[in-house]
């Protein structure tokens, strides 16, 4: 009986199905564990693009202290970072540099658009040198509105990003 089912032709299919089954069984807890690790160690790139960086600085100061939520002020290499907080206006001169910074970061990486300028161009909607939002440059995960957003808003945006990461697939190829 078993021999009839397990012909060389079907064996491959069977092993493949078994692998899928196992992977599905393991992937959910494993992915949860990986994502859990990711959400508490978000390292933002230190790229300050415009005036919202003042409020970003205030958010990492002692009163608001984003480190409580696992967003670590990293002053290190781009290769260790996994979060870009686009702090305000992106001009035409800055846009290729921003993309360059994003491309240098390892996967997985997340983008938070902070401030009205990063979302739509904001106050500078009719300026000749400002991009109308960064959607054309980077894939944005969370939009944080405000001009500039208060530090509480930025923290809420980061927490929303953490919620989003929790539901994301941990591994791309699955």
């Amino acid at each position, binding site marked *: 009986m078993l021999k009839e089912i397990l012909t060389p032709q079907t064996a491959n299919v069977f092993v493949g199905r078994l692998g899928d089954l196992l992977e599905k069984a393991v992937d959910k807890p494993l992915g949860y564990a990986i994502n859990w690790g990711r959400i508490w160690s978000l390292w933002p790139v230190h790229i300050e693009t415009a005036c919202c960086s003042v409020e970003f600085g205030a958010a990492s100061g002692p009163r608001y202290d984003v480190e409580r939520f696992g967003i670590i002020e990293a002053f290190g290499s781009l290769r260790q970072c996994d979060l870009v907080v686009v702090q305000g206006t992106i001009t035409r*001169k800055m846009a290729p540099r921003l993309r360059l910074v994003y491309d240098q970061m390892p996967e997985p990486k997340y983008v938070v658009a902070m401030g009205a300028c990063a979302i739509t161009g904001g106050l500078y*909607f009719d*300026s*000749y*040198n400002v991009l109308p939002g960064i959607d054309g440059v980077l894939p944005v995960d969370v939009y944080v509105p405000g001009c500039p957003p208060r530090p509480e808003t930025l923290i809420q945006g980061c927490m929303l990003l953490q919620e989003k990461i929790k539901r994301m697939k941990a591994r791309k190829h699955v």
Partner: protein
Amino acid sequence: MEKEGVPAQSGGGEKGQEAKKAEAPLPEVDSSLRSRIESLFGERATVEFARPGRMQVNVAGKDIVEVARFARDELGFDHAESVTGIDRPADGQIEVVYHLGSYTRPDLAGHVLAVSTRAPREEDPSPGADSTRLPSLRGVFYSVEFHEREAFEMLGVYFEGHPDNRRLLLPEDWADMPPMRKDFAIKGR
């Protein structure tokens, strides 16, 4: 209707303001500055206005280096605060205003001398290659270096004798006309 109304209003206001300004006598320092400039340069330097602490002198492009050197060496204005380019399409000219200040002379500390000059304006500008040129004041006031670079990219005024006439603020691939010209229209306006 509207076009007729606006200049009449503003013209009336201008006369009123000027009459009020003319009544107030100028302090000693201002009037001596004015008389020294007028006596030396005569026709070549006309005083546009003189208010307490503020004076504007209009000179032709070829005289600006001489006037600036006189302001630095004789009058005591030792640095340039800003260089402003103003597009005047109605006159077919581009105005460049140098604001000069003084740190070393205590009596001139609250004074700003504006030296204004004009360059011809091209309808179809190609910055650096057309007739919109002025002599640079970099040799007189070191501090105008970046200001003149900004005026070059924003209005297309090429400063002859400037060692480093390059882009400063605009993106490297900017291919449009200089943005501070009046005929450069921004989005949706």
